[in-house]
């Protein structure tokens, strides 16, 4: 196994306080069964899964409760045994925001009885069958974006130049990948090998930030033991957002993912270490995704730690298992403090997107939102991993100047939040970019609609003119016909009159 130490530097980025030590003291807490599960059927990107259970039905742990919907989707499974109490719309946290989704609500029985699938078979050898199994097993990007893994792997299968397995975990507070790599490195490595087999990758690079020496050691040992010549371990500098897909690719290869495309456009695919682990569980034991590791941390939680949490566990209950709240919790954050979003309540369920819950007190988060004027210090541009000029973008964003926004590369913003953190004027940048992106997309849609409407109107005008033309021609023809008929009739009358005259005068017929 070759150890890679890329000497390339990340464009931009900042060094942040990690806040990870507090949650990595205790081992992962396992075996929790909450009294109630609220399992969202649309946790992943793409279309919602379709429920296949009924209210009142008993379900076992790992039993499918929803099958993948049309297109990009993933299956959903009961995360513990119990009885379906309701199937209803609830608010659930997903990759980038809260979403209203159909949920299967289960009252658990505490038995945690596993599902015995009569039709369960071993890991298939055929790629299509493997992808189908991954899709039905509900595997989706466990780094937090929850993009269905089957679709992502399929998008690069057969032409993959390298599989990049992301254990960088650059976002502050989150330590679930770190703990998973420390505790089950062998299974992660086996999962990586299976993924590499699936997509036919000649290289499988596991990337870990340098601030996780135990994970690096554990994965290194497991990878050497596995002895697969495709495996590489890359230690990358601890700098946010080195763990972003585009940033990892830049850091490892020096290549850039072309604007508006995904890594598969240049033959790469990135997968989170947790996803590799889920794939290995599926392949070796047939288990679908019924739980994930969640970092429960922040100064506002009594016993910060990592927990193996059944999908659908209420967040409030999860916090109780970690000693409950401590002090004044100013904000409850889903994900890390850079890209994670604030939850309005803890009465929300854990989903496959829930990598971390930060119960933050005033001391550790931004609470003052007063702004000063921009002093053009350029720090925002210096730290931007996309090499944008946030100080110019924000002017265009406020003015909703769509031409400028487009020219300044708004859609290339990865919303990492570095610019907000370094801005000495405390100008709210990323949130304005998010909102401007929505407005720009709407503007583009509206423009497309209006140009389509214009074309439609023109076509209609042409049709109308054609009809008018046709009508006029028909009228002309009719008039000519009438005139001709009239002349004919007149000639007939004149002829008759002529004949009558001749008859009167006793003339012989000619």
């Amino acid at each position, binding site marked *: 196994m070759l150890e890679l130490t890329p000497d390339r530097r990340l464009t931009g980025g900042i060094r942040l306080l990690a806040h990870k030590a507090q949650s990595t003291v205790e081992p992962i807490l396992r075996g929790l069964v909450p009294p109630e599960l609220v399992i969202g059927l649309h946790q992943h990107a793409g279309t919602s899964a379709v429920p296949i259970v009924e209210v009142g039905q008993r379900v076992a742990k790992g039993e499918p409760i929803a099958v993948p919907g049309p297109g990009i989707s993933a299956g959903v499974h009961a995360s513990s045994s119990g009885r379906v109490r309701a199937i209803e719309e609830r608010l659930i946290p997903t990759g980038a925001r809260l979403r209203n989704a159909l949920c299967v609500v289960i009252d658990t029985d505490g038995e945690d009885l596993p599902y015995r699938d009569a039709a369960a078979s071993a890991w298939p050898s055929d790629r299509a069958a493997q992808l189908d199994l991954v899709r039905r097993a509900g595997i989706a990007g466990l780094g937090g974006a929850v993009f269905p893994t089957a679709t992502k792997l399929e998008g690069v299968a057969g032409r993959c130049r390298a599989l990049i397995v992301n254990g960088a975990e650059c976002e502050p507070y989150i330590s679930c990948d770190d703990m998973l790599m420390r505790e089950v490195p062998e299974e992660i490595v086996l999962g990586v090998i299976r993924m590499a087999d699936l997509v036919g990758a000649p290289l499988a690079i596991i990337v870990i930030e340098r601030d996780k020496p135990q994970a690096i050691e554990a994965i290194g040992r497991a990878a050497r033991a596995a002895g697969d010549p495709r495996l590489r371990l890359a230690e990358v500098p601890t700098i946010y957002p080195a763990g972003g897909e585009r940033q990892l690719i830049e850091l490892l290869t020096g290549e850039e993912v072309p604007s508006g495309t995904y890594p598969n456009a240049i033959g790469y695919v990135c997968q989170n270490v947790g996803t590799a682990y889920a794939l290995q569980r599926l392949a070796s034991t047939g288990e679908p995704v019924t739980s994930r590791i969640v970092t429960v941390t922040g100064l506002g939680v009594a016993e910060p730690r990592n927990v193996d949490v059944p999908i659908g566990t209420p967040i409030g209950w999860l916090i109780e298992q970690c000693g409950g709240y401590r002090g004044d919790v100013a904000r409850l954050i889903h994900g890390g403090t850079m890209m994670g979003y604030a939850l309005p309540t803890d009465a929300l369920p854990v989903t496959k997107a829930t990598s971390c819950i930060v119960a933050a007190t005033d001391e550790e988060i*931004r609470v003052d939102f007063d702004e000063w004027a921009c002093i053009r210090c350029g720090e925002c541009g210096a730290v931007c991993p996309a090499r944008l000029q946030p100080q110019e973008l924000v002017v265009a964003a406020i003015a909703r100047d769509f031409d400028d926004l487009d020219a300044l590369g708004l859609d290339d913003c990865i919303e990492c939040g570095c610019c907000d953190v370094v801005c000495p004027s405390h100008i709210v940048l990323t949130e304005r970019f998010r909102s401007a992106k929505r407005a720009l997309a709407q503007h583009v849609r509206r423009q497309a609609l209006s140009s389509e409407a214009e074309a439609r109107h023109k076509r209609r005008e042409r049709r109308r003119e054609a009809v008018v033309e046709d009508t006029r021609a028909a009228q002309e023809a009719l008039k000519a016909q009438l005139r001709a008929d009239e002349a004919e009739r007149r000639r007939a009358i004149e002829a008759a009159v002529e004949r009558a005259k001749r008859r009167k005068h006793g003339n012989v017929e000619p």
Partner: protein
Amino acid sequence: MIEEPTPSSTRAAPRRFETAAPPHTRPISSVPRIMRRVLYALAPAAAVYTWFFGFGLLINFVIVALAAVATEAAILLLRRRPVARTLRDGSALVTAALLAFALPPLLPWWIPALGGFVAIALAKQLYGGLGKNLFNPAMVAYVLLLASFPVLMTQWLPPRMGDIDYRPLGFVDQVRYSLLAELPPERTVDAYTRATPLDMVKEGLRAQRPFQELRGHSMIGTFGGRGWEWVGNLIALGGLYLLYAGIIRWHIPVAVLGGLLLPALVLHLIDPSGYAGPAFHLFSGAALLGAFFIATDPVSAPTTDRGRLYYGAGIGLLTYAIRTWGGYPDGLAFAVLLMNAAVPLIDRYTQPRIYGHAKR
């Protein structure tokens, strides 16, 4: 949808939380902190300046600062903007400090007062306040005063420790001159003021005297102008602190000094008696203050690293050209203002290539 009664024991009362948009991480810096640090960085140089040239700098600073803050407060009131919060950004004090360093130490009070007013009213608030001004406010005020009051604005004092027959003015004498334009009995302004080393060398070279001979003059110290060179050392130290603290980046200072010193070195090597050497240029006049504190004013400088190199090099070269061939002994203020005007153009042509886009 059908829902059965909820067993109440299974659910704790949900807690509600305030929300806010990400990122939640606290900002690592602030405008007032930056401005405070710039003032700290200038403090050692101000102390040395005071030791060599008396209290004029501090008196001028107080007057400029009062005028600047009063002007800013008045205009903010007129513009119906938050006064206290805006003044707290500290930018007016930094402008005042830079202007005070640029002014000669012996001046009647109304010159620094007018300077403070011009810097804030004309050069800053008329453009829309902090961050909107095209030109460096302190330099606008300095150049306006220099052009309007050329005699008063060249009343430079000789340094203490000169082997010139000279008794430095005390604090009380300085304040008396500033407020009442009165000097101690039997003394005139001419008895105190001297040309600056830059002026002396420039006139000397113009009179065909070789630089080697001028270097031996009592006004010249080890590297540059006597006294001035020590102010310069501490300015450079303050500049290094700004670099270390991440307040400024290296591009502008390096480019300004490179643009000034490179032609100085080349021409001095070609003709050592006709052109002053790089050490003299570095440690005289506004070179170090300009490189570290004036040209680095972010508002009136480009925002990209490459742009800052062009901008700084332009300032250095223009300063050298004005010092060597122009009508003024120092040219940094003019060079800064000229390059300020070029900033929008520089910014436009030095935009970095966005990630994932082809080279333009």
